């Protein structure tokens, strides 16, 4: 068990080509569960593979504990990795799969046996120890892959989208199991996923990546409540946050000519972010022309347009009748403002107070 430090880590595949990952700084405390999340191609897997030693590091430093591991062989980094397709050795039994790494390290037969048995008990794999991976279900294979990681007793676990080959129901169960297991073992973990829900539920801290750069690092709720940019705002949360073009005119935030709130800002265009679940149906406010409605049982998602801009509202009272046009408002604290050109978050604490005072 150890902390994990990435400083200014970057990866460029061919000289002159665009960097796949650049300038990543992450400090991971001992025992912390960090989730790297982002759309496909954002460099999250590359980053993980650099920590694993499967990709060379072209810039910056990676430290496991206090040891610089940039040029250390994967086997000597004291890490264990769980792969998306499990990568179990098909010709070996479950026991063989878990023991192989220990055998190569030259552990005694007795020690290997003890650890494998212990991991199998923990993962409820004991009855399957002498089966081949072929004879196991997807969830069981997943557990074997985890077992293979556990028996190594590494400084850090690396997970590369380990749940994306499972069906939806199993994914939820395994998600819980991974979380519980990590808590119990207290092993520092780095987990890659493109699924923001998985990221939110598992992480101690999220690292949102976009185009090879870190967009935001923070606890799940912090990222959800204070997205640092329009990218994070749109990526975290489901249904996605509504991002609308708006204007500040004389201290008033106007969307498509309708007043939304008072803000202490200079006049000019801004991007306003409104979570569907923060929007409230009311008699006045922004007019939403309804396009279609998704019924989810406990709530319904109303999709429509404010002016020409698409927007969604999560409505908690699915039985109430709807007219063609509804009006929505949001509390000032739930309104996120972003710079139109850079996409960066721009509200300041002082400003919020002023807005509340004037509203």
């Amino acid at each position, binding site marked *: 068990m150890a902390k994990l430090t990435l400083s200014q880590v970057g990866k460029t595949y061919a000289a002159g080509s665009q960097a796949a990952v650049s300038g990543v700084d992450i400090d991971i405390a001992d025992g912390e569960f960090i989730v790297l999340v982002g759309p496909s191609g954002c460099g999250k897997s590359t980053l993980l593979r650099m920590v694993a030693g*499967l990709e060379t590091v072209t810039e910056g430093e990676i430290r496991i504990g206090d040891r610089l591991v940039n040029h250390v062989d994967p*086997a000597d980094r004291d890490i264990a990795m769980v792969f998306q397709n499990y*990568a179990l*050795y098909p010709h070996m039994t479950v026991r063989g799969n878990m023991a192989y790494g220990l055998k190569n390290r030259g552990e005694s037969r007795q020690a290997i046996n003890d650890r494998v048995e212990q991991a199998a008990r923990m993962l409820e794999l004991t009855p399957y120890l002498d089966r081949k991976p072929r004879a196991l279900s997807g969830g069981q294979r997943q557990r074997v892959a985890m077992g293979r990681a556990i028996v190594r007793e590494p400084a850090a676990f690396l997970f590369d989208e380990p749940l994306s080959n499972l069906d939806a129901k199993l994914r939820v169960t395994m998600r819980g199991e991974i979380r519980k297991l990590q808590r119990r073992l207290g092993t520092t973990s780095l987990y890659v996923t493109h699924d923001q829900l998985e990221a939110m539920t598992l992480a101690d801290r999220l690292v949102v990546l976009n185009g090879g750069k870190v967009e935001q690092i923070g606890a799940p709720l912090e990222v959800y409540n204070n997205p640092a940019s329009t990218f994070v705002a749109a990526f975290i949360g489901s249904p996605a946050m509504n991002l609308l073009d708006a204007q500040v005119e004389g201290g008033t935030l106007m969307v498509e000519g309708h007043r939304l709130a008072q803000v202490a800002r200079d006049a000019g265009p801004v991007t306003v972010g409104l979570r569907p679940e923060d929007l409230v149906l009311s008699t006045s406010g922004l007019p939403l022309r309804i396009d279609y409605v998704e019924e989810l049982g406990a709530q319904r998602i109303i999709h429509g347009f404010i002016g020409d801009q698409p927007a969604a509202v999560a409505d908690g009272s699915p039985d109430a009748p709807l007219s063609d046009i509804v009006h929505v408002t949001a509390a000032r604290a739930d309104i996120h403002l972003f710079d139109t050109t850079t996409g960066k978050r721009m509200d300041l604490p002082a400003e919020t107070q002023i807005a509340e005072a004037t509203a």
Partner: protein
Amino acid sequence: MADITHTAPTEDRQARRINWGAVSDHAVLIAGALFMMAPLVMLIQMSTIPDAEIMQTGPSLEIGNQFWPNVKKALLGAMSFSGEDTGLSMFRSSMILGLGFAVGKIVISMLAAYAIVYFRLRFATFAFWLIFTTLLLPLEVRIVPSYEVTQKLGLLNTYGGLIIPLIASATATFFFRQFFLSVPDELVEAARIDGAGPVKFFIDILVPLSQTMIAAIFIIMFVFGWNQYLWPTMITTDESKYTLVQGIKQITQSLEGTHIPEFGRSNLLAVLAVLPPVAVVIFFQRWFVKGLTESDK
């Protein structure tokens, strides 16, 4: 009661219904099998009657009493002054050639494919295609230089000379390359994290994974090696190193004119020459089909 009388006839009708499709399929297959086996049966029949009688009547349905004497002659009798080219010694030579061929080719081509697929070599693709183009240069085309090299290495009349010059195989290298390419990259990475170096990965992971592939290549190469005629004829003048395929030719050829050809004996040698390839195919059949059609991952 009513139920029973009602259902009984329908059951009968179902039991009696004949699947004519299956019958005709089997008829065709059985006819084909008989047709293919007929020459072999004729060979064995002819070996049971005296050679002189065959000269007069040709193949017949008669079963004579010469089978065991012919077997003895075929296995133990030599047809030269040296007395070293008995059926058994030729069988041994053929076996060494076939096995050496198959095993050698598998080892060499697996290593070549391993290098091409898993190591960042300069010109790996070029090397692969270079190996592949050797398919265009079969033994017959390059037999004179091949012979010269073998002779200069002093390998004439040795098993080494029989096997080594033919041991490189573009076909097997190609098959193994395709197979290795289909092995998921994550397996290599998992092995690397598990601390398996290149040699360990090859022996612990890749070879066991290739089992079915190895079996399939083994059959093909064993039969190919066993049936070699031209190369052994060129390389061996020592009669103790003659192979079966050579020996059969020798019998019918050398005894023509002066004697009645020893049909019985040569026929039995021919049967002996057929047996091992058949045995190998039967033994490895399951693996063979699996290896060439499905991937075990």
